[in-house]
């Protein structure tokens, strides 16, 4: 990361037109302030994380032992589907958008987002999308039960009635994401403080810029594929129906053309966060700033040519298998570069281990494990044995839970003192970290074993040979789930009280956001800072 020398003549808000937040609910409904909107995104994401988490616990409770104990298979399928949709679109993505709203203007020295009113809309349509989605649980026939990947024809000809509401919900969240992405790009490209050249931007801003372009490229494709489903279901077309000359496999191609970049949408901002935190607590500049930027850009580009590695068993010709295998393996190179750079940043630094750093280190280790299993999955012939087993479940949970989710928690702990003006309670933060760390590994590591041993994913009941590791995973899931109550406690406690935080908060922190007082005033950088 570039060192930022800031010439900051007046930190205080001197513009007489600016004022503090309005009072009451109207403040939140009408707000165009990036900090308010960022907070709303984060709170929304946290509540979705809890709802999705409860679903995960229902799944794990049913899988605690073989046999059907708690739920019917059809409801189990609704749970796996809704858990996936809510975690991806309701928890992880909005959390990153919330962090972007809070931090990007502060990191580039902008007074607000480029399009504050659109910012308000893109948040406020989101709760409605999820109300629609969640209400489908109470509809006749139940909620979507065809998996978060909603493969046709299970999600078209054979779907419950609620699929139409699901499609509508996906359209709304897609619109929200696209508006959010346009806003972020416009902010980064047009609102940077003088002297803040592109190659001086903090990596969190860089990764978000690239993520936003990915969002604009693929969210419309998702909207397209659900629209085709809608037409197949209600208007008699045959995009995915072999009877009318369509092809169910086409659905998978279009879905994964969206789906694979989507995976990186959920991890690139995490790379940015980790690249902010590690240098701070190693007290050393990020190693290889420019190669980090190029690595993220090449991961993003590669994400468009690897989609069919999710479909190695659909009966592709040999050339297809080989091409998608090679392309997928290539992703390991830039990803490796990132991990090496983080380790090189720590090497010969001067490290301390506050809560954000603990989460960041856990991220590097556990994400890399997820990366290794990803590399194994890329090997097409071996994928015939891994595909659609718990090995895949273990893989993507390793990159998403101790990957994306840990990075969000790390970011929250890292920037929370800046938002609230209170220092962290390290004891409670560490308690949360260690409980989560143990919980995550006890939950997801055994899934590698049952997957390799032959347990398919998305089943409500399983053969006896998988029983022991499943009980273990269920115990881990409850540890992880309930330890998030500590997280909520920590955040609420920090908002309410705590030792007064300094402007810099962390000894080794660099960057514009650390030059403004803690808590950050309602309006910041009304006069752009000079970055030299």
């Amino acid at each position, binding site marked *: 990361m570039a060192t930022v020398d800031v010439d900051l003549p007046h930190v205080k808000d001197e513009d007489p037109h600016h004022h503090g937040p309005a009072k009451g609910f109207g403040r939140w409904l009408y707000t165009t302030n990036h900090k308010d909107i960022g907070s709303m995104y984060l709170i929304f994401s946290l509540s979705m994380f809890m709802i999705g988490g409860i679903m995960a616990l229902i799944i794990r409770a049913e899988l605690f032992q073989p046999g059907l104990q708690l739920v019917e298979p059809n409801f189990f399928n609704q749970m796996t589907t809704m858990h996936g949709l809510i975690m991806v679109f309701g928890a992880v993505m909005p959390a990153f958008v919330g962090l972007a709203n809070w931090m990007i203007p502060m990191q580039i020295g902008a007074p607000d987002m*480029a*399009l504050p009113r659109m910012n308000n809309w893109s948040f406020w349509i989101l709760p409605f999308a999820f109300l629609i989605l969640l209400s489908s649980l109470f509809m006749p026939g139940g909620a979507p039960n065809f998996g978060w990947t909603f493969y046709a024809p299970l999600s078209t000809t054979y779907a419950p009635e609620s699929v139409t509401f699901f499609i509508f919900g996906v359209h709304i969240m897609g619109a929200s994401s*696209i508006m959010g*992405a*346009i806003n972020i*790009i*416009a902010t980064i*490209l*047009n*609102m940077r403080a003088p002297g803040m050249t592109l190659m001086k931007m903090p990596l969190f801003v860089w990764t978000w810029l690239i993520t936003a372009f990915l969002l*604009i*490229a*693929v*969210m*419309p*494709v*998702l*909207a*397209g*594929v659900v*629209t*085709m489903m809608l037409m197949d279901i209600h208007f*008699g*077309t*045959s*995009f995915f129906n*072999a*009877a*009318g*000359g*369509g*092809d169910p*496999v*086409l659905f998978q*191609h*279009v879905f994964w*053309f*969206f789906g694979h970049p989507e995976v990186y949408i959920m991890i690139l901002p995490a790379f940015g966060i980790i690249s902010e935190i590690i240098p701070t607590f190693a007290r050393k500049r990020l190693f290889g700033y420019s190669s980090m930027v190029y690595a993220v850009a090449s991961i993003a580009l590669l994400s468009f040519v690897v989609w069919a590695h999710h479909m190695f068993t659909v*009966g*592709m*010709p*040999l*050339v*297809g298998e080989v091409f998608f295998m090679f392309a997928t393996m290539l992703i390991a190179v830039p990803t490796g570069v990132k991990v090496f750079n983080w380790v090189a940043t720590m090497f010969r630094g001067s490290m301390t281990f506050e809560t954000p750093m603990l989460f960041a280190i856990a991220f590097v280790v556990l994400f890399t494990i997820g990366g290794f299993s990803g590399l194994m999955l890329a090997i097409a012939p071996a994928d015939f044995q891994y595909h659609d087993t718990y090995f895949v479940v273990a893989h993507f949970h390793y990159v998403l839970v101790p990957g994306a989710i840990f990075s969000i928690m790390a970011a929250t702990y890292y920037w929370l003192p800046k938002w609230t003006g209170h220092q962290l309670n390290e004891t409670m933060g560490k308690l949360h970290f260690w409980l989560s760390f143990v919980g995550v590994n006890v939950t997801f590591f055994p899934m590698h074993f049952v997957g390799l041993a032959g347990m398919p994913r998305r089943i409500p009941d399983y053969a006896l040979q998988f029983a022991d590791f499943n009980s273990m995973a269920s115990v881990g899931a409850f540890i992880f789930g309930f330890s998030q109550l500590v997280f909520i406690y920590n955040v609420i406690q920090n908002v309410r009280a705590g030792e007064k935080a300094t402007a810099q908060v962390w000894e080794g922190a660099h960057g514009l956001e650390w030059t403004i007082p803690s808590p950050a005033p309602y309006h910041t950088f009304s006069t752009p800072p000079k970055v030299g």
Partner: protein
Amino acid sequence: MAEQNEIKTNRLVVRLATAAIAMFGFGFALVPLYDVFCDITGLNGKNFSQGPAEVASVDRSRTVKVQFVTVNPAGMPWDFKPTVRSMRVYPGEDKHTTFYAKNSTGEWMVAQAVPSVTPSEAAPYLHKVNCFCFDRQPLDAGTDTEMPLLFVVDPELPEHISTITLSYALYDLTDDQKVAQLKLDNDKGRTSL
């Protein structure tokens, strides 16, 4: 300065929104693109050539086993099977076979056979000169029929392919005869394979 920035932002927003709309269109463009891609690579085993084949000579140095397989998708009550399960053919040789279909229900029905070939690599080398799958098949209640298939295996079929399986899934199109007709007109190439 601020105004200039606003103009810049507006222009950027218009461009990005256009890009988003274009990508929505691209999602739909993937459908025909996929067909083109399949035609070139044989990705989904559907890129047969139709009509009279221009095959120069019969290759008597090897034979290929051609298998016929039928599938009744859900809700299709007809009896449907190949009269011959498999045959050995010389590449380049014109071959004729039939499929038997019987509408065992008490109502008039219309069906459409949808073909698929495995290995998909072989699909472009299986020329269908004439096939019942080019058209819809109506059958009165309780009647049966034998439906013809005339095909040639291209002599250029790669050496390592020794068996070609041609599968037909027979779909009931009685209900959406009308809607499907529209689709057929729009998209002749895909439905009438």
